[in-house]
């Protein structure tokens, strides 16, 4: 056995196969408006937006150790910004989405300075307080409909695209684009130096600090970037819904509870987890939705059982069984092909 026979690599055959499969799936998804029905298209659009939210929450909680139960603050903020920017500033909806993200980043800075003073679980509840403050504040703005909310004017909706079919296709592509953008950015970020620092902090905050990693700054950057992207997703969500109200925009159930369950069930702290979790969540929802509140009860029970019995989620279980990873973050030692020998 010779050391030259081995090499350190991030890639493997499984990853190459997955990359090719992933590419094929992506092409098929881009073409979906030409083969899928209207209802399916809407469902898939919603799925992609949840995937994006889940990936972002996972980046915060699973990698940066920032467990937030108040991401609805930025979902709602983004949604309201879309409405305000298009209705009052006359912006076209698409640049308005980008601007909503920018404003989300801006507002997250003072928020971070405040709530980063809270540790651990208290940080979590602190984020919830912020979301409540956002909700109550937007409910006070009468030009946006106050507590009862408002609808996006028809003229603005029409400015997106002439026909309803074209609008729905566009809105689908935006959602797909957002999901691809978010998952790719999270992946690229985690492979970068900053991402490595983040993983180091997660594994051992004390040791990471003593190695000269600025923990506060790293977490701060993650928080601001996540907030900006979450606000953009929020804008997209309410561009699909065309109607906004404080209760819907800042719902802890819709934008945080479901997202957390997706990540926990799929596997926290992995890139693949949110993807699997989203698929499981939508499968559960589509089969159990008729049961109403029972469905939510089941979801809560599933999340608790997964957390207690399989804390690494579905993906963690698969990875442990088959030593598999699709988005290669870890290096592995592989035997070289001995073709030359």
């Amino acid at each position: 056995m010779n050391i030259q026979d081995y090499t350190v690599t991030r890639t493997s055959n499984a990853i190459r196969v997955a990359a090719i499969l992933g590419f094929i799936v992506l092409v098929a998804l881009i073409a979906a408006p030409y083969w899928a029905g209207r209802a399916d298209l809407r469902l898939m659009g919603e799925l992609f937006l949840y995937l994006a939210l889940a990936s972002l929450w996972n980046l915060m909680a699973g990698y940066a150790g920032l467990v937030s139960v108040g991401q609805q603050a930025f979902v709602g903020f983004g949604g309201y910004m879309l409405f305000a920017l298009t209705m009052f500033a006359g912006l076209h909806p698409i640049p308005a989405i980008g601007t909503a993200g920018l404003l989300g980043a801006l507002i997250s800075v003072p928020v971070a300075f405040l709530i980063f003073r809270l540790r651990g679980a208290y940080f979590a509840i602190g984020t919830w307080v912020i979301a409540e403050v956002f909700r109550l504040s937007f409910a006070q703005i009468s030009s946006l409909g106050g507590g009862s909310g408002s609808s996006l004017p028809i003229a603005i909706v029409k400015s997106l695209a002439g026909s309803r079919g074209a609008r729905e296709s566009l809105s689908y592509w935006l959602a797909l684009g957002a999901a691809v953008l978010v998952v790719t950015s999270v992946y690229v970020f985690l492979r970068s130096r900053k991402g490595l620092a983040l993983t180091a902090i997660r594994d051992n905050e004390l040791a990471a600090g003593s190695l000269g990693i600025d923990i506060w700054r790293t977490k701060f950057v993650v928080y601001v970037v996540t907030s900006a992207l979450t606000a953009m997703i929020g804008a997209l969500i309410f561009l699909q819904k065309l109607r906004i109200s404080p209760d819907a925009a800042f719902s802890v159930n819709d934008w945080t509870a479901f997202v957390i369950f997706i990540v926990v069930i799929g596997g926290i702290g992995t890139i693949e987890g949110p993807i699997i979790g989203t698929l499981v969540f939508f499968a559960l929802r589509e089969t159990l939705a008729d049961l109403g509140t029972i469905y939510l009860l089941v979801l809560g029970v599933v999340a608790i059982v997964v957390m207690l019995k399989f804390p690494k989620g579905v993906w963690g279980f698969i990875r442990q069984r088959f030593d598999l990873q699709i988005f290669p973050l870890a290096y592995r030692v592989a035997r070289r092909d001995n073709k030359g020998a």
Partner: protein
Amino acid sequence: MDWLNAIVQGTLLGGLYALFAAGLSLIFGVMRLVNIAHGDLIVLGAYLGLTVTTATGLHPLLALFLIVPAMGLIGYALQRGMLNQTLGSDLLPPLLVTFGLSVILQNGLLELYTADPQKLDAGSLETASVTVGGLSLGVLPVLTFFVALAVIGGLQWMFYKTPLGRAFRAVSDNQDIAQLMGLNRRHIFGLAMALALGVTAIAGILLGIRTSFDPSIGGGRLIFGFEAVIIGGLGNLWGTLVGGIILGIAQTIGAKIDPGWQLLAGHIAFLVILAVRPNGLFPRTTE
């Protein structure tokens, strides 16, 4: 006189918030657990009150003699059966499991009792008032405030003067060594949760007499309790009472300016204190 009235009413309201907070504070003090389902457990207490009073015709305050032990049992079972498994150095499991519990409680109550607002019927207690120095004070808010004083005083006494409190402090200091002293931390944690839910039951009943409630209001109660704890300073029960009072006063003054501002004013007071005194007003001095 109006402003003075707002301040006095806010102080009395603070007693209720301190009751929301006391259980949260106790649990955190003993096992560093932050229970996201705390607010929903308060609401559960109120619904248990509703069931008992409608089934037996008991006055809600008398029903406490049944509901406090019942909630205590629920707390002990919850801790031994579920929450003990989440305790460790990792923050996520307790947070996510109690979050799941919150969703289960909310939807379970919704399934059993529907979303219709309910109220506990306490007869004349609800409207009775006394006049003190020209201010008209509701008997119920005054009673709530004194119950809060008694509960916090009782918890303080239990914590510092009884063998149980000694065991709580020992386990909180060092779980391994406490275990060597013959203390089974799983049992001690169960007792702490039982006690916390006993207090929660009192808070739930008083809440249910004061205002109408439905299954969705738990999150808000958790936040009020949490804000009272942080304003007062972690690990200080009397500080928690002051925190509740500050929150109550901020809300009543906010409501006086504009009814829509009541909750917002409370949150803003909390954020301002977080900005200027991140460790709260009376942090426990640590060595």
